């Protein structure tokens, strides 16, 4: 197919189509409305269905319905809309339904702004909804990476019967870059014999449900979920190490911020500061290994986020007191500049060098 120049939001959509997703339910919100519009045009072409729901709440529940009927389905929104989906997401988890949920984050809280942000990290990784659960969360940094991660997201959703988050930000959604859609071999996945599609041909009635009135049952179910999360932690961690081999200092950043950080790191190395980067790609399960491997040797970590400090907690938990963990964040839709990050690296390294 070759390279095409596309907007991030459209890449997410097209990548989903490539991953075999034929069904989309969603509600427009800036900065991801192009994704919605793209799906409206594209899905009929592949014999699928695009339906604009009356709200984010309706959308996530339509996803619940479609997922319970056994199809690959997704929805997308941005921060306030994702907050509205929290009950529905908790239901997807409780009923163990596979679905992919995109959050192209914008500045908060409240109506906030429509500029890029990473301030829904907690919501995505710690469970914004009620109950004990985790959802695999992937954060692409480039449009090309989206293509792979969308395929992974749908496969993981089906393999573990869980919703999966893709976390982007307004910048990723709005920017254009050349991408190439490569074909990938379909993963081996268990059959969806639990799907409620009518009983004709199979045995007794099947039930999709998250209610377990007997606390004993519900505890069993929760234990089953926790076991599933252990498996995901074992198998689905994704991260990138950048120049960490010889690093004295490590920057931790994900998504678009990691790209800006990379530029700053290059500049810092030019100044002779040995600095590298750990880029979590799966935000949950959080990549603890690269920290275990570096926390003995490096001098300090610097977490950079478009937030007031969220991922930094997971970094601290992983570093577990071995070394100082610094934080630099911008909020409200402000994007940290390369210069700012460079200045923070220099500060961490102990003054102007």
């Amino acid at each position, binding site marked *: 197919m070759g390279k095409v120049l596309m907007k991030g939001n459209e890449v997410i959509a097209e990548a989903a189509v490539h991953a075999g997703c034929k069904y989309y339910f969603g509600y427009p919100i800036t900065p991801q409305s192009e994704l919605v519009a793209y799906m409206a045009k594209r899905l009929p072409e592949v014999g699928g269905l695009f*339906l604009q*729901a009356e709200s984010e*709440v309706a*959308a996530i*529940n339509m996803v619940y319905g*479609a997922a*319970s009927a056994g199809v690959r389905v997704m929805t997308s929104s941005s921060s306030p809309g994702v907050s509205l989906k929290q009950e529905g997401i908790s239901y997807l988890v409780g009923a163990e339904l596979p679905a992919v949920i995109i959050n192209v984050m914008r500045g908060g809280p409240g109506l906030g702004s429509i500029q890029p942000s990473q301030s829904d990290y907690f919501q995505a990784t710690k469970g914004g909804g009620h109950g004990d659960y985790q959802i695999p969360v992937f954060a692409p940094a480039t449009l090309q990476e989206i293509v792979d991660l969308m395929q992974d997201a749908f496969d993981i959703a089906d393999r573990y019967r869980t919703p999966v988050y893709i976390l982007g930000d307004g910048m990723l959604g709005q920017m254009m870059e050349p991408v190439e859609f490569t074909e990938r071999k379909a993963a081996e996945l268990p059959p969806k014999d639990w799907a409620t599609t009518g009983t004709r041909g199979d045995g007794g009635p*099947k*039930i999709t*449900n998250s209610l377990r009135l007997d606390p004993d049952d519900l505890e069993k179910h929760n234990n089953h979920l926790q076991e599933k999360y252990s498996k995901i932690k074992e198998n689905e961690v994704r991260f990138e190490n950048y120049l960490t081999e010889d690093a004295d200092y490590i920057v931790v950043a994900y998504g678009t911020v990691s790209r800006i950080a990379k530029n700053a790191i290059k500049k810092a190395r030019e100044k002779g500061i040995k600095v590298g980067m750990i880029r979590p790609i799966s935000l949950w399960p959080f990549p603890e290994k690269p920290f275990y491997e570096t926390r003995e040797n490096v001098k300090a970590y610097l977490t950079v986020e478009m937030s007031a400090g969220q991922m930094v907690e997971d970094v601290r938990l992983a570093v577990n007191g071995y070394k100082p963990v610094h934080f630099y964040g911008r909020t409200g839709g402000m994007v940290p500049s390369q210069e700012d990050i460079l200045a923070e690296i220099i500060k961490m390294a102990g003054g102007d060098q």
Partner: protein
Amino acid sequence: MELVFERTNGLTEKPTHYCPGCTHGIIHRLVGEVLEEMDIIEDTVGVASVGCSVLAYDYFNCDMTQAAHGRAPAVATGIKRVLPKDRIVFTYQGDGDLASIGMAEIVHAAARGENITVIFVNNAIYGMTGGQMAPTSLVGQKTATSPFGRDIALQGSPIRVSELLATLDGASYIERVSTHDVASIIKAKKAIRKAFETQKNGLGFSMVEVLSTCPTNWGIDPKESLDWVKEKMIPEYPLGVYKDVKGGK
């Protein structure tokens, strides 16, 4: 001896958890009978809502999905739109579920003309949570959250859902029936069948509003409850067909 009447195969064997004399049970049976008589049990996916009928997923003998409070029409939309055309999808919702928290979802499902069937159980109260006021509670009705009786000035007037949805072009078949005596139960079954047939023929959104009892939270016995439906509810909620696109209404 020949068999005149027996438990339908549209229901599972499970005893229900409903209170004695609660007409939820009758309505379940009617839906089960219609599924069986139309021979669509195996093609049907039901959507249980949140309310006393939350466990409906254990009682109907077809595939069932449990939906969040108020969202059954959205869940049903998701199911119906992705399955082959010959599958039948219905929701079973209480009045708190459908008319209070789920108002947006039901209006939009009707407006879209979703080809689903809604069984709407109106018992003028929240049963499961212990008898709070529903949008359908009658003026003056005392409930846990209208301890001095529903007051128009404070809580407004009852919502007549059938009349409301009948204004939407997308709604194809809407009828209000009751379960307060054998004759109306027979009529209710006919309406439910008509609704499922509307769906089967691809005509779009169908809903049957069934007036039902809640002896437990009304605080009267099952028989008195039937009388209350007849004397108090029906005047506020007149029975009849509110929309029948095919019948030209």
